[in-house]
């Protein structure tokens, strides 16, 4: 049967060998195994996340502070260009689509509210999450994956350096801090993008647009959006680091981990985003 759910004794989050399974006896066995493996990986990711949180207590050493600042720089500054373009166009598309519909009812002046609320509640954290998952998450998975296949993770363990504390905790802090900051930036640019479209295409003055946007958007919209951003940061780090640690089979394995990081992060962000919205707005 092979080792279906990992080997007792070996570190739960780090696999050192390609997993071997006998071919499933039928289609249902295959599906069952996929479900069990997905649950196992989710469990391992949560165990790793818990360990990373426990390491927070001892994370404020000079080295970790330096690493956190570096990761914040990578996450924030290096992603700024793509976030700027995506945020502006997201706001512009939102304003154009809602504005064209609202114009049929003579209500195009309300695009300020529509854009501000949608950006703050959903599109700001969601778009930022997708961009960071694709750029930073994949980079984290590739880096840790390369370290795993070149035995650097083994070397850390043998030096009694906890790989979770050394690699995961600084990235967790950096993404949990940078995601809300980037989301605020995305929100602002999205709303500005909407204002430009409103003024140039729909005949809504900037004063009317911003007056409308600030009058109906609530603080709660901002807070819930920022809460989502923090969660998305934690999700991206957890998925990327777990995939990185699970990498085996050389360069092919690194590519596979990177791809899986982006896919799993996207899906988890979508599902968690929906659940948070339901929790606060239903």
């Amino acid at each position: 049967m092979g080792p279906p759910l990992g080997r007792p004794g070996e570190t739960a989050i780090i696999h050192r060998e390609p997993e071997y399974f006998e071919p499933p006896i039928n289609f249902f066995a295959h599906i069952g195994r996929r479900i069990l493996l997905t649950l196992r990986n989710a469990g391992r990711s949560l165990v790793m996340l818990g360990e990373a949180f426990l390491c927070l207590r001892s994370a404020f050493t000079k080295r970790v502070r330096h690493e956190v600042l570096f990761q914040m720089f990578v996450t924030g500054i290096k992603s700024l260009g793509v976030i700027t373009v995506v945020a502006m166009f997201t706001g512009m598309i939102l304003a154009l689509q809602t504005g064209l519909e609202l114009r049929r009812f003579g209500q195009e002046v309300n695009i300020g509210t529509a854009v501000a609320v949608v950006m703050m509640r959903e599109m700001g954290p969601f778009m930022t999450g997708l961009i960071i998952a694709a750029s930073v998450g994949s980079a984290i998975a590739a880096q840790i994956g390369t370290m795993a296949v070149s035995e650097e993770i083994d070397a850390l363990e043998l030096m009694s350096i906890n790989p979770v504390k050394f690699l995961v905790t600084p990235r967790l802090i950096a993404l949990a801090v940078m995601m809300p900051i980037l989301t605020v930036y995305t929100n602002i640019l999205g709303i500005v993008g909407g204002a430009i479209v409103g003024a140039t295409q729909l005949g809504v003055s900037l004063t009317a647009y911003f007056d409308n946007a600030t009058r109906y958007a609530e603080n709660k919209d901002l807070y819930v959006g920022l809460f989502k951003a923090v969660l998305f940061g934690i999700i991206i780090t957890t998925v990327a680091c777990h995939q990185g640690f699970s990498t085996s089979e050389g360069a092919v394995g690194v590519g596979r981990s990177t791809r899986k990081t982006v896919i799993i992060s996207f899906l988890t962000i979508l599902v968690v985003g929906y659940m948070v919205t339901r929790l606060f707005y239903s």
Partner: protein
Amino acid sequence: MIRFEKVTRRLGGRLVLDAVDFEIEKGETFVIVGSSGAGKSVTLKHMVRLLTPDAGRVWVGDDAVSEARGAELERIRSRFGVLFQGAALLQWLNVGDNVALPLREHTDLGEEEIDRLVEERLRLVNLEDVAAKFPADLSGGMRKRVGLARAIVMKPEIILYDEPTSGLDPVTSRTIDHLIDNLRRELGVTSVVVTHDLHSALAIGTRIAMLHEGKIIEVSTPEEFIRSKQEVVRGFLDAQYITQRGTWETA
């Protein structure tokens, strides 16, 4: 010092170690040879519990490392220094920071003392003026020596070498052999070397073990090893142009 008791391990559905038994004495250089995929590195990884046996036990002194966890495992592992096949240096740290890493993480030494120790260890492996360089700027042989400097920086009792000469030219390989031998004599460490380079094994080993199809089929001194009657051993010796009438016989 290190004892394998009927250690069995399957990997990817294949039996890699089949009830392996052997013992390594304190202060010796024990070399494990065998063809690629014979399970040499797997054997090495069991000594520090990077892998655990399916059956059997691995002992380091009086400690069953194959069953150790947490603080006990850390204590056992602190007795080891390991030189990995690819050196396993952290690519984003320079040479000095790589060697200093265990000191910074586990000691309260000041930066000046750490710098002094790093310099001393680098000199011991015949490297100078490389502390500021990054691993990517070094040759394969230099990377291995940096890995060795990092492995010995905490003064371990046992050093494990995983294919220390693989991918190196013959001259650099012999330099690494001399280093391994010097470290044993100067620091009094126990060394376990995994290699398929028989020239290296015969030059540095106090005993040589041959791993074949998951079993240890020969454990002997270099002099006895080249006279072995075992067909597999003879084939291995012949493949590397080592004959009973060669230099090793007179040595």
